[in-house]
């Protein structure tokens, strides 16, 4: 590995000649990462980023199914204004669990840890991430965090909402709260380690020729995300430690009964949890950029605008947490500044959307399933964005805060944004990950169910929220009944869409048609390998002479590698020996 990156660096500084040859990925590979090591034990102890990515993907899918099932139970309970089939305390525990699982176990790890783990090293032409063992450790830390959260269920559960606001969370006599906060504390380390790993990988393991201006936008997005993960997540850990010190040692920090201040807790909590929103959505932006270029067969419009806006969002995102607290009693000056900065963070997001739409102009647009999800993403995420502007406006937020309007807004951003982007990415990279195609017509039908179901579920929530329906309500007053019932019906349609996806992806695994290395004719580096990829991603260390979106260049110029095959490490010496000989092509 070190040798490869050395030659990349020297290629950039002095125009050293590399001996390069064209390599064409085999249509049907004989040896892939899936066949290289077999058996459960090999999977559980693997340091292969692809397998770890798949294990994350499986876990995320599991938690999504579980938390989604809870959502269906919640929506069913809300069919009538009073009790439908569960008790108030159960309802409160279920919505807390739904929120906590979706945020900490699904959205935060979904794109970076699952898809990012698989794709990032491939897009860099690397054999793995920088610290493969640390990568495996991150996964197990994630699993441990999840186990602790489930232990809380065995200890009376917890009903505080995923925000754990004090003094409610410190007054509650349930032992469950200790377990779940411990679980989230542990989980944070998984996030920090993944972030560190990605930053190092992006800096050190780029294949020869991948300069910063040829970095795929997905990598830029993951880079911005990793920075937030590394900087913000420790604050969550600190907050939870303070909470524990208060509960166990009776030191007054947040609880007024001990001389603490509950508003301080909210500052701490949102100092992490607002940047965490960007941990969830920014990687989604990366996927959209990849998919939209492939299916428009066109270079991205405004590469630097999109790349740098991710970084801008990452930095400004740290300075807007107070917009969750306009009604909390924080100082008036703080409130004013937070509102102002909130609008600033909206601008780079808008810029991205405009650039994506501009990319479509004069493209060659193919409406395959991943592209369909991109269109759905832009539709839903725009609504999420505009309603975010609404909530950033001080006077209007006073009215809308903690109502269903907010619930609808963050579902449009998190589900309509992150989750739809995840689906776009999953359908886009599925052939690469499995080597199989899925049933395209069925996939489009499922996307239709999801689009319709989503809007039927959440559009009425904007209206009833603006009408005054508060969130986290087990009972509600009669006038909101039609909105709630529409929303419940929508959630069933949505669930049906996901069941269809589950069906055809499972079908694809066993009976799907062979995909071939590059079914979408993408110029992305990850597509210049076999499907599924070799254990070390590429048979040759790739050499890159064009940007990842240069669709005007012939595909052959994207299939270059060092002249000597790389194996499992033993051939590097040979590569060095021949590397200085005369060469075909190289770039500075």
């Amino acid at each position, binding site marked *: 590995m070190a040798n490869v990156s050395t030659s990349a660096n020297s290629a950039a500084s002095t125009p050293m000649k590399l001996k390069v040859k064209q390599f064409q990925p085999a249509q049907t590979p004989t040896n892939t990462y899936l066949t290289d090591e077999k058996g459960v034990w090999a999977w559980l102890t693997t340091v292969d980023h692809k397998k770890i990515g798949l294990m994350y993907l499986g876990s995320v899918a599991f938690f999504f199914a579980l938390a989604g099932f809870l959502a269906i139970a919640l929506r069913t309970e809300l069919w009538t204004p009073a009790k439908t089939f569960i008790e*108030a305390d159960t309802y409160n525990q279920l919505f807390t669990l739904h929120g906590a699982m979706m945020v900490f176990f699904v959205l935060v790890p979904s794109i970076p840890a699952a898809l990012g783990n698989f794709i990032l090293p491939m897009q860099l032409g690397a054999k793995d991430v920088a610290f493969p063992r640390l990568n495996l450790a991150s996964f197990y830390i994630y699993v441990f965090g999840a186990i602790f959260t489930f232990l809380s269920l065995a200890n009376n559960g917890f009903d505080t909402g995923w925000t754990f*606001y004090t*003094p*409610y969370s410190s007054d509650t*006599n349930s032992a469950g709260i200790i377990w779940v906060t411990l679980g989230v504390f542990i989980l944070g380390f998984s996030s920090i380690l993944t972030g560190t790993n990605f930053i190092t990988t992006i800096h050190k393991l780029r294949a020869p020729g991948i300069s910063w201006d040829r970095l795929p936008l997905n990598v830029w997005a993951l880079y911005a995300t990793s920075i937030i993960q590394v900087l913000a997540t420790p604050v969550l850990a600190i907050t939870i430690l303070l909470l524990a010190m208060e509960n166990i040692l009776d030191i007054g920090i947040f609880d*007024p*009964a001990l001389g603490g201040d*509950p508003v301080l807790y909210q500052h701490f909590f949102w100092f992490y949890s607002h940047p965490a929103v960007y941990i969830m959505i920014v990687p989604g932006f990366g996927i959209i950029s990849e998919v939209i270029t492939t299916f*428009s*067969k066109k*270079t991205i419009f*405004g*590469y630097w*605008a999109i790349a740098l806006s991710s970084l801008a969002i990452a930095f400004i995102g740290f300075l807007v947490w107070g917009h969750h607290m306009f*009604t909390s*009693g924080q100082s*008036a000056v703080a*409130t004013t500044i937070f509102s*102002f900065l909130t*609008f*600033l963070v909206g*601008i780079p997001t*808008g*810029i991205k959307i*405009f650039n994506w739409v*501009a990319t*479509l*102009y*004069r493209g*060659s*647009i*193919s409406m395959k399933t991943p592209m369909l999800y991109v269109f759905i993403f*832009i*539709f839903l995420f*725009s609504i999420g964005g*505009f*309603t975010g*502007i*609404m909530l*950033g*406006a*001080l*006077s*209007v*937020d*006073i*009215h809308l805060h*903690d*109502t269903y309007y907010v619930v609808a807004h963050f579902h449009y951003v998190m589900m309509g944004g992150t989750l739809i982007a995840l689906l776009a990415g999953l359908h886009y990279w599925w052939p690469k990950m499995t080597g199989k195609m899925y049933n395209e017509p069925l996939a489009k039908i499922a996307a239709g169910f999801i689009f319709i179901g989503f809007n039927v579920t959440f559009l009425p929530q*904007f*209206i009833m929220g*603006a*009408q*005054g329906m*508060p969130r*986290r309500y*087990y*009972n509600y*007053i009669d006038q909101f009944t039609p909105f709630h019932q529409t929303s419940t019906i929508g959630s069933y349609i949505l669930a049906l869409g996901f069941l269809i996806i589950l069906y055809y992806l499972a079908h694809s695994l066993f009976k799907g048609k062979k995909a071939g290395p590059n079914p979408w*004719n993408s110029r992305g580096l990850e597509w210049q390998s076999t499907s599924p990829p070799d254990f070390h991603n590429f048979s040759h260390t790739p050499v890159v002479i064009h940007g990842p979106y240069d669709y005007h260049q012939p595909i052959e110029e994207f299939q270059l590698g060092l002249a000597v095959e790389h194996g499992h490490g033993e051939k590097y010496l040979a590569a060095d020996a021949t590397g200085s000989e005369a060469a075909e092509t190289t770039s500075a």
Partner: protein
Amino acid sequence: MGRLFDFMLPENKSPLTADSTDGLFHFINEASLVLFLGVVLAMIYFAIRYKRKSEDDKTPVITHNNTLEITWSVIPLLITFVVFGWGYSGWLNLKTVPDDAYEIHVTGFKWNWSVNYENGAQTINEIHVPKGTPIKLVMQSRDVLHSFFVPEYRVKHDVLPNRYTYVWFQAEEAGESQVFCTEYCGTSHSNMLAKVIVHEPDDFKTWLDENGGTPSGSPVEQGEKLVSLQGCQTCHSVDGSDLIGPSFKGIWGRDRNLADGSSVTVDENYIRESILYPGEKIAEGYQNVMTPYEGRISDEEITNIIEYLKTID
């Protein structure tokens, strides 16, 4: 009026606090709709107009356009400046209580709103106000965070245990408006409702005079009133039905099983302890969720409540 998004908002019953908010709500919605349609229609038009014809399609190399980038950065930025300024001024108005506002004290606790008036009158989950007068509610919580929200006035503020917060409004017609608690506070969060009852100014005066002054009547009558005003009935029924806590019906002199397996006879001292320190003895089958009344209720009041409880069978 008749704005496109009128259907989204509840009636505006306090124009002095709601007008600016409503105006901005409509402006953002309408501006967003224009931009949203622009983006979505452009996207759909491109998808149809530039549909892939063959796998060999050639596409032009359009890498960027600085004029466009600046245009679509600066225009939204200017719009958001307008939104910020408008929201800020509306919010300042919500923060600035008129000098002649009439003050009423509101205390939130699990899961009731207790209201105190200048002459000692007290109500539970009803806030009586005169119309056409600015009203300032000075609010605090007795336990966890709550939040006071009246959609028809567009006012909301969190209610905290360690400090006073306030909202103000001016209702312009007699009638009722719904109050919600919007900060999650436990089991009966969604039942922590109240009404603002707006009277004609003269009616309000009459109402206030009738309900003010020191409590009177026999100990049983005073105890019954206290049980109502302290919000006990939110969790404890008087007809035997099972709510969040045990019913008051027929408890006097009976044995009660406790959560730790022991049992206790319901007498004066047990009731006194259960009011002041409810966490000490938890009845079997119930949660420890009651707010302690230590320091919030006098000995005389406890005695009156005990006298009243004796009469419920």
